């Protein structure tokens, strides 16, 4: 009997009672609260598009439905393996014999240790250990992680990853990020408000126009999620979305009501859904959120532009480039938001908040070289495994290439898989190198523009402090602001401003 016929017979024949297959038990639903995940894994899952509900359900980014335990556990394991790979690759960079020894590595290692295999972490942190031994252990562990990811990839996955994605198209990414109609509606209100607010400024219009599609600004989706670590906002390249921190955003919303109502409002907005519903019903709160965060939004929209302009995030989303935070991209985003702030100071000084963004702008105006050095240093300290220069990212990519080259193959299928992996990684390395060159050229054009406008910036800052002085509620603040206004006016050499400040000082005295 032919196999197909046998199968057909089996399907139609009533099975003996004793052999009746037990219906498959419905897969247990995942409860993220019981899964023992820490804050970092939680943040990682959210960044992959998972939605972790207050009742413990974990909503799958693709289906938007509650995930079962198997799928959830797999996602957590993938995330942990990815973190381990990033930690091992950072360790490898530190172990490079050509790199100068750096006692700061100890602090970095301690931060990375949580993602390293315990045995390796102990050896790496032991002052008596030999570097060659650590290197060998790290190499073996990297092989294991590579095998984990290689084993999970089919030939179809590999072919898809090897296919270049045409410029200007997003390539495969996480599903559209909105989970509910309400979330989408609030996101679109935030987008519209951001377009209006940022579009009031000439430089803001330049930022928006970079995201044009079919002649209209095409802003990425804007989401509200818990970020942790005091992070106000970030661009999530996996979802091609800007994510605003719920707690930070809540503060802006609370600021729209009189102080006597603030506590009651805060208490009523303790859940994400309540906050979304409030924003949906209160356009003035949406506007306040955007006004409070427009500079930050310009920073994140710059990352969105980088994503559309360059193939790097596209390749990263497909695993062809390490999941890193290129410091050069941060440099460009920080400079762009500071240029926006400078433009606002000139056009509408009263709209500029005196916060950390303002302090960062002043620091850049004072000296761009020192500012850049501090920026890179601070970002690297905050994220030792992910914040890398392009040069370091290229080194990590080279390590991955080398590992694939060294992979032994026994079958034609394995040979084809290896060829495809080499193709994608080689292209990834080329993309990173191209970006390194392009970035250097962009900054070479941008820096003189920033430095050449210093005197004009002083005048704008003088006017700004004059506005702040006239609005200051407390006399000591007024004094400080007038003093700053006077100094900036003097530094700018602008006679009219000097005179204006002098008169303001006289009036206050």
């Amino acid at each position, binding site marked *: 009997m032919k196999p197909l016929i046998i199968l057909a017979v089996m399907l139609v024949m009533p099975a003996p009672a004793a052999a009746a297959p037990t219906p498959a038990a419905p897969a247990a639903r995942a409860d993220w609260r019981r899964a023992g995940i820490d804050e970092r894994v939680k943040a990682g899952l959210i960044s992959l598009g998972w939605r972790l509900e207050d009742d413990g359900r974990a909503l799958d980014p693709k289906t938007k439905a509650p995930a079962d335990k198997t799928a959830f556990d797999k996602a957590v394991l993938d995330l942990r393996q990815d973190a381990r790979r990033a930690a091992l690759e950072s360790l490898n960079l530190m172990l490079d014999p050509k790199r100068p*020894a*750096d006692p*700061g590595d100890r602090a970095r290692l301690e931060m990375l240790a949580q993602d390293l295999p315990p045995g390796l972490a102990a050896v790496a942190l032991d002052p008596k250990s*030999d*570097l060659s031994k650590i290197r060998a252990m790290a190499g073996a562990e990297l092989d294991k992680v590579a095998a984990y990811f290689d084993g999970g990839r089919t030939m179809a996955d590999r072919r898809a990853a090897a296919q270049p994605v045409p410029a200007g198209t997003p390539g495969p990414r996480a599903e559209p990020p909105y989970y509910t109609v309400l979330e989408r509606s609030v996101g679109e209100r935030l987008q519209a408000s951001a377009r209006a607010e940022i579009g009031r400024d000439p430089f803001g219009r330049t930022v928006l126009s970079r995201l044009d599609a079919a002649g209209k600004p095409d802003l990425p989706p804007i989401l509200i999620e818990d970020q942790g*670590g005091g992070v106000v906002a*970030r661009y999530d390249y996996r979802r091609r979305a800007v994510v605003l921190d719920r707690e930070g955003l809540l503060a802006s919303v609370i600021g729209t009501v009189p102080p006597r109502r603030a506590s009651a409002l805060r208490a009523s907005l303790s859940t994400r859904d309540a906050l979304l519903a409030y924003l949906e019903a209160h356009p003035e709160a949406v506007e306040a959120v955007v006004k409070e965060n427009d500079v930050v939004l310009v920073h994140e929209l710059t990352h969105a532009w980088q994503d559309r302009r360059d193939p790097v995030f596209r390749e990263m989303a497909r695993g062809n480039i390490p999941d890193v935070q290129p410091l050069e991209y941060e440099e460009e985003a920080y400079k762009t938001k500071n240029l926006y702030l400078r433009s606002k100071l000139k056009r509408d000084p009263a709209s500029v908040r005196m916060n950390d963004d303002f302090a960062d702008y002043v620091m850049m105006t004072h000296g761009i070289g*020192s500012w850049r050095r501090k920026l890179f240093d601070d970002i690297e300290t905050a994220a030792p495994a992910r914040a890398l220069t392009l*040069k370091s990212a290229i080194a990590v990519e080279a390590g991955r290439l080398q590992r694939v080259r060294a992979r032994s193959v026994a079958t034609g299928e394995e040979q084809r898989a290896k060829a495809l992996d080499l193709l994608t990684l080689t292209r990834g390395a080329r993309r990173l190198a191209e970006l390194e060159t392009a970035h250097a050229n962009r900054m070479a054009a941008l820096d003189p523009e920033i430095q050449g406008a210093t005197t004009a910036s002083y005048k704008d800052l003088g006017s700004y402090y004059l506005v702040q002085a006239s609005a200051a509620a407390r006399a000591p603040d007024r004094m400080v602001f007038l003093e700053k206004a006077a100094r900036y006016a003097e530094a700018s050499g602008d006679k009219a401003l000097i005179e204006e400040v002098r008169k303001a000082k006289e009036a206050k005295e």
Partner: protein
Amino acid sequence: MKPALALAVLVALAACKRAPEEGAIVVPTQEIVAGVGMIDFTSEEAGFSCRVPGEWGVRESKYLDPAKGLSLWDGKRTHISITKFPEMEPQYKDARAYAETFWMLSDKGQPEITVEKIGGRTVLRFHQERPYYKPHSRKLEYMNRFDYALFPIQGGFFQIEHRAVASEYKATLPVFEAVVRSFKPKI
């Protein structure tokens, strides 16, 4: 000797042992200051020599062109950097004019500038506190204290900066002072 190489020698990665064949060169400790071994250091690229904390690392070598200076950190939250102007910032050529711009960076006004003779040069000294925020965050983490010594040279100056958490800066201030006292521009 190249700056990176000179410092590479003292301590290996996280105090692990680097094998001798990896180019380790032993640089002798000249003195111990506040528990930190100080070594002699020369930068041919930037043109200076001084004592530096040998157990500290070249924190930002990849962000700072050696011709513009050197930046060291203790592996925690303290940094000492030596930078050359106007190479670092083209708009600053005069040490006093530069020192007199620090009112921009604080609401406490212009820090008082004192003058000291070190190695026959007139060195400008001042300090300042500024808030520290993590990148992408609005949460004030702590106040940093910055101590400065500016060494005028022909056509520019060298800046030596000590950056530490304000509540901890006294622990490493002697190390900074040792760097300043030993500093010799080649120009």
